[in-house]
């Protein structure tokens, strides 16, 4: 146990934070402990946490995708526009919507790999551009009245109390876990994240891995957009706006290095549980939205700062090497 904790320091800290959150929540609100609330807690953020899974890969690979929330909106807008036209079978509209997300990812991946541009800039352009595209498609309309079965996917339960999207999340999570930590592809993702040059020298097809990740990111964002539409029953051009911050926060809080190369699925899952529980607890304690966001922001900074300081004092060294003062 102690050995595991030493090896997984970050995950151990998260477990303590999560446990503390749960204890505080239970003591603050009598409504917290209930199966319905437990399902709600996931269900209310289901689109975000689905994208968190794939964002974990992207960041470990040393890249970032700021465009996910806009791609969510874009995919849902494509689907809604096709549905609105009325000519097409709705299932086909859904498929084309998700494919549009994949193409958005493909386009960004191409620009990133072909021109060697930083993903931060390319996906920033994507963040603005795909949101724009979603708004071009839907303008000021809110498209709803989807077939009943579609809304049931988002709103009703599949197995026992679990909505379809939640089941999808857990299946996806299990798959991602295996791919990231048990497959050759996962190892490549880590190696590239550590050093793209080293990866290249050791014969890893860096660009191809990057491409696949961005396409996956776009596809999953597209899927999340469609699920979003199913959950709320209507699509507007602003769907999912500013979700990227929450998504990236959860991944980084999970101990994934923003520089790539390190992080674990377990950490991300723990971070995700922690954030969802904190938001839920604050919500039940009637804390308004802006304060909730502030608390998460504080947590994000603290999650990197506290271990840094702890390490510094434990080692009785003036500063970690990375930001050491120069010699006198």
């Amino acid at each position: 146990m102690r050995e595991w904790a030493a090896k997984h320091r970050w995950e151990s800290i998260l477990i303590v934070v999560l446990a503390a959150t749960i204890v505080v929540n239970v003591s603050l609100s009598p409504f917290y402990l209930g199966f319905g609330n437990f399902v709600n807690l996931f269900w209310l953020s289901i689109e975000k946490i689905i994208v968190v899974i794939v964002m974990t890969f992207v960041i470990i690979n040393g890249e970032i995708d700021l465009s996910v929330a806009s791609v969510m909106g874009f995919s849902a807008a494509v689907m809604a526009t096709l549905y609105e036209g009325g000519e097409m079978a709705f299932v086909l509209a859904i498929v084309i919507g998700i494919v549009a997300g994949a193409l958005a990812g493909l386009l960004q991946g191409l620009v990133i790999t072909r021109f060697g541009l930083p993903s931060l800039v390319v996906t920033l352009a994507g963040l603005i551009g795909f949101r724009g595209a979603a708004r071009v498609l839907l303008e000021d309309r809110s498209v709803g009245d989807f077939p009943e079965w579609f809304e049931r996917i988002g709103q009703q339960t599949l197995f026992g109390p679990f909505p379809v999207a939640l089941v999808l999340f857990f299946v996806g999570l299990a798959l991602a876990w295996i791919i990231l930590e048990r497959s050759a592809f996962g190892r490549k993702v880590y190696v590239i994240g550590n050093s793209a040059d080293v990866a290249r020298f050791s014969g890893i097809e860096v660009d191809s891995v990057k491409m696949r990740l961005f396409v996956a990111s776009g596809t999953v964002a597209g899927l999340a957009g469609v699920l979003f539409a199913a959950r709320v029953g209507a699509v507007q051009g602003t769907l999912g706006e500013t979700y990227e911050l929450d998504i990236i926060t959860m991944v980084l809080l999970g101990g994934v290095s923003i520089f790539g190369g390190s992080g674990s699925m377990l950490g991300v899952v723990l971070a995700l549980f922690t954030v969802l529980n904190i938001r839920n607890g604050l919500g039940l304690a009637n804390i308004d939205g802006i304060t909730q966001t502030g608390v998460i922001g504080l947590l994000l900074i603290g999650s990197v700062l506290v271990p840094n300081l702890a390490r510094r004092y434990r080692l009785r060294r003036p500063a970690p090497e990375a930001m050491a003062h120069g010699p006198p």
Partner: protein
Amino acid sequence: MKANKRRSRVLGPLVVVALILAACGGDSGDTTTTAGEATTTAAEATTTVAAETTTSAAAETTTSAAAGGEAVEITAGDSITATFLPKCTNIAVFPQANSGAEEAAAELGSDPAEFVGPADCGDATGQIEFMTNAVTQGVQAIMLSNNSGDQLDAPAQAAADAGIPVVTWDSPIPSATGESVFVAQVDFDETGQVMAEMARTILGDDGGEFAILSAGPDSANQNAWIAAMEEVLATPEFENLVLVETVYGNDVAEDSVTAALGLADSHPDLELIMAPTTVGIVAAAQAMTQEGLCETIKVSGLGLPEEMAPYVESGCAPEFALWSFVDLGYLAYYVAYGIATEQIVAEEGTTFIAGRMGEYEITADPTRDAGLRVLMGPFSKYNAENPGT
């Protein structure tokens, strides 16, 4: 509050009559409910008429209520738990509305409702979250200003299924799913009428060019008001008023200033900017002020008196209008409390007395295909004589 004085002068005698009638009906919750139900059929006939002729619906509601007679006075009873959920917590009008709700809660001997909401007025999922949490908490009433379209349908239905009345105010649920009743600030068609009239007052009888600076292209309330205004403009009375363009400032100060100046540059003959948003109107007034354009281009629309004061004084914004958000919150709380304590029933024809604001009637909502409405009204117009501050 100024608006209210005028109103209470009209309502005063009616309220006295209604109070007596309500007192006759008995003061326990159960009996008053029956009294409310009894009025239903009597009021229904007049309601439809009132709904058809929209311009001064507020006045007609009072008439029909007087005809129906037996209004239920909502009185203090048990304390209830409630959630007061605005579009977002950061725009000045919503804390104002909440202060009205707090005032009502104090009068009714109830704990104030929890004032929670998303940080961003466009965040529909934030509202879904707060709605769902409120249901989990088992509150006895939810007062909601819907910040999106149909996205709130499912959680509102969940609340209704859990027996929680959902009283919307400021902005309703379009399909009325799960909604008990909508407390409307003013009649949406009347908003169009009032804006057109203000434009005519400012531009004079010979008319001129004007433009609209709205919130966002997705803002449901603003779009409804603009559509209503365009309808009024199509009538011969207003044929001299030429609407040249509608632009959007996204309820962001910087964007609104940019959009307002863009209008000034694109249309050399522009004489008026009409902004049906409290953020937009003040930004437009400020933009005209700092570019020295106030002489040629005036600003009007829907604005908060305290924000508009310097521009009324300078003549940049000669006239604008708004309803009282404090009163809106107050009335919404009364309605929610009345329903939650079973003093009134959310159905067509129910008439009731809401504290200092007097008597109202629940009618079918003529602006939507479904749903019930309580119409607050009236507009207050603000100008140099009545700056409102």
